[in-house]
């Protein structure tokens, strides 16, 4: 039985149990697309994934996880785990994904919407993340566990923390889908946190975010991978007029995975600022895939990513800036800087610009380099051991990015995590 047949069965049983026609709009095309195309394994014409070896994705017939199998299912232990990572949060700021009791239910700043519930302001599955864009998104759409909610001006908390707790079993498939709408004039921070679990699991989280007019979202994304798990993480953002979206990603590569962000700048005068750091080590593979579509005039976008690669790991950065004909006065920049710590590490960085407007300012740049020998010499001549100097150099490289994270807790957390990650990266 091919792996597609396995998922076909899963999809069919999910479709049977979910009779809600309301969501068929996205579920059905996702199901059809996946059954026909499967995962994006083909190399030919597959710009997004061609540098990665995705075969492991089909090595197991993953079955859908249930919430009780999560490593930290109870609320207290999730809080404790966050606490141990230096993130201190209060109960009503947290949403543990997949939790039936949904800890946010009933609170006045947020309204979790059950499947099919009708609300004039809700974002529906598939509205922003096209299920036919990619095999992973399609599978997610076909069998998704959906959380849909909106946040309005009454949201009084510092941040909403969305925690994806790791699995406690091998061969599990996790297909969370969150549809979030930030209402007009609302300013909010969302911290999306993926804990690692050292189990053979296939995680395909998809977030669809709709930013209403003049709203502002700071989205901090933390992916802590492990040697066994796979995490293909998708964020799809739709921006209305005057809205602002900021994404800070901190990724320690899972065995294979991606941070895939697409921002559709549909409203005039909107801004997006996407930044991130990715660490890869061992034989891990990690894809950072960023697309910014400028569809309206007077929008501003920035992409700035950094990678630290060691051992025989591989990272891919592909960043795209698309400027529609009518999107005059677009200002768009893109930068990707990489530090290769070992000879076996590989980075494929691929910027692309597609511009149809004539009055725009766009720039891009990418670098890949080793630790600079002259700089090391300089630092060692001040009495620092080579190891100390190297670590300080890498730390400095990373800190430039971390220091731009606005949320104190997440910035400290990223800083602490870096301290934990560095010894494993640099000196093997």
């Amino acid at each position: 039985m091919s792996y597609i047949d396995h998922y076909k069965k899963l999809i069919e049983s999910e479709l049977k149990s979910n009779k809600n026609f309301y969501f068929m709009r996205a579920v059905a095309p996702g199901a059809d697309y996946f059954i026909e195309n499967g995962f994006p394994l083909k190399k030919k014409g597959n710009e997004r994934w061609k540098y990665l070896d995705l075969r492991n994705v089909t090595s197991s017939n993953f079955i859908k996880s249930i919430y009780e199998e999560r490593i930290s299912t109870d609320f207290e232990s999730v809080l404790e785990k966050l606490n141990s990572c230096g993130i201190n949060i209060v109960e009503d700021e947290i949403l543990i994904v997949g939790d039936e009791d949904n800890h946010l239910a009933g609170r006045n700043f947020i309204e979790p919407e059950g499947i099919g519930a009708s609300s004039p302001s809700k974002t529906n599955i598939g509205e922003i993340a096209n299920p036919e864009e990619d095999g992973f998104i399609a599978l997610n759409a076909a069998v998704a566990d959906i959380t849909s909610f909106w946040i309005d001006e009454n949201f009084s908390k510092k941040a909403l923390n969305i925690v994806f707790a790791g699995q406690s079993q091998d061969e599990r498939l996790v297909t969370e889908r969150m549809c979030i709408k930030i209402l007009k004039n609302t300013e909010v921070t969302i911290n999306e946190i993926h804990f690692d679990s050292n189990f053979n699991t296939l995680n395909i989280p998809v977030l669809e975010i709709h930013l209403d007019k003049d709203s502002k979202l700071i989205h901090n994304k933390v992916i802590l991978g492990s040697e066994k798990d796979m995490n293909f993480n998708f964020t799809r953002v739709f921006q209305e007029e005057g809205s602002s979206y900021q994404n800070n990603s901190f990724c320690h590569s899972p065995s294979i995975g991606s941070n895939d962000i697409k921002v559709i700048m549909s409203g005039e005068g909107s801004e997006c600022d996407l930044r991130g750091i990715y660490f890869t080590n061992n034989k891990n593979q990690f894809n950072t895939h960023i697309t910014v579509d400028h569809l309206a005039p007077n929008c501003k976008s920035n992409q700035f990513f950094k990678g630290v690669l060691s051992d025989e790991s591989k990272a891919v950065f592909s960043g795209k800036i698309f400027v529609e004909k009518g999107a005059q006065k677009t200002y768009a920049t893109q930068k990707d800087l990489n530090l290769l710590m070992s000879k076996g590490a590989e980075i494929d960085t691929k910027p692309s610009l597609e511009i149809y407007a004539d009055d725009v300012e766009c720039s891009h740049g990418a670098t890949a380099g080793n630790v600079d020998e002259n700089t090391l010499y300089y630092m060692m001549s001040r009495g620092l051991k080579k190891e100390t100097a190297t670590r300080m150099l890498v730390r400095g490289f990373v800190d430039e990015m971390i220091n731009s994270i606005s949320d104190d807790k997440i910035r400290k957390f990223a800083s602490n995590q870096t301290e934990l990650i560095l010894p494993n990266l640099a000196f093997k």
Partner: protein
Amino acid sequence: MDNKILEIKNLKALVSETGEEILSGIDLEIGDGETHVIMGPNGGGKSTLVNVIAGRDSYEVSSGSIKFKSKNLLNMNIDERSREGIFLAFQYPSEIPGVRPWQFMKAAVDAKRKANGDPELSVREFSKIYDDNLKKININSDLMKRSLNEGFSGGEKKRNEVFQMMMLEPNLALLDETDSGLDVDALKAVGDAVNNLRDSKRSFLIVTHYQRLLDHIKPDFVHILINGKIAESGNSDLVKKIENDGYESFA
């Protein structure tokens, strides 16, 4: 007998990558508390000499010896030499993104103290010395909030080198064209800083192209380095001879 802090005997060194010989038999002794100046034409080996003493590994010592405080320097790594008391003020200091000058100096001072068996300075103790020295060398403290050397002007970088020297209190300071690119005020500041540090336990080896630095710093000895060898040694009168006759007369 005078104590020699540095003894170089028949030192030959080449560029590791190309095998090109740059130093072709240097003999040089520096006594405790002495200030030596090395002058000479471009490509003569002045920079190479101080970098070989500092331990730069893109050069290979093919023969000869260097002793520092009677210890074989050639057995030591770059960082060991520094902790032992050698300091090189770079001609082209590196810019280090994301590394703050304070943090860098704290790590360096701690490393040296640790090697000497001294206790680490508290943040407070360290900060006081740090701020005092910044004032002495007259570096804008806002500048030091940036990444190390990033966005520093040429002169600011050189001042920062001298500042680091003041922080690390070496026994032998090597200054590689620290005076080049400096305006008159900066030149005076560098000269004053060096003069303030001069004492019986600290020696200087200063590479320069210009006699004007010597208006501020009076050397005990002047050497002329041509084609990888010391062509002549003497006192500061030698500088006048160079002014009048150029280097050709020594070749």
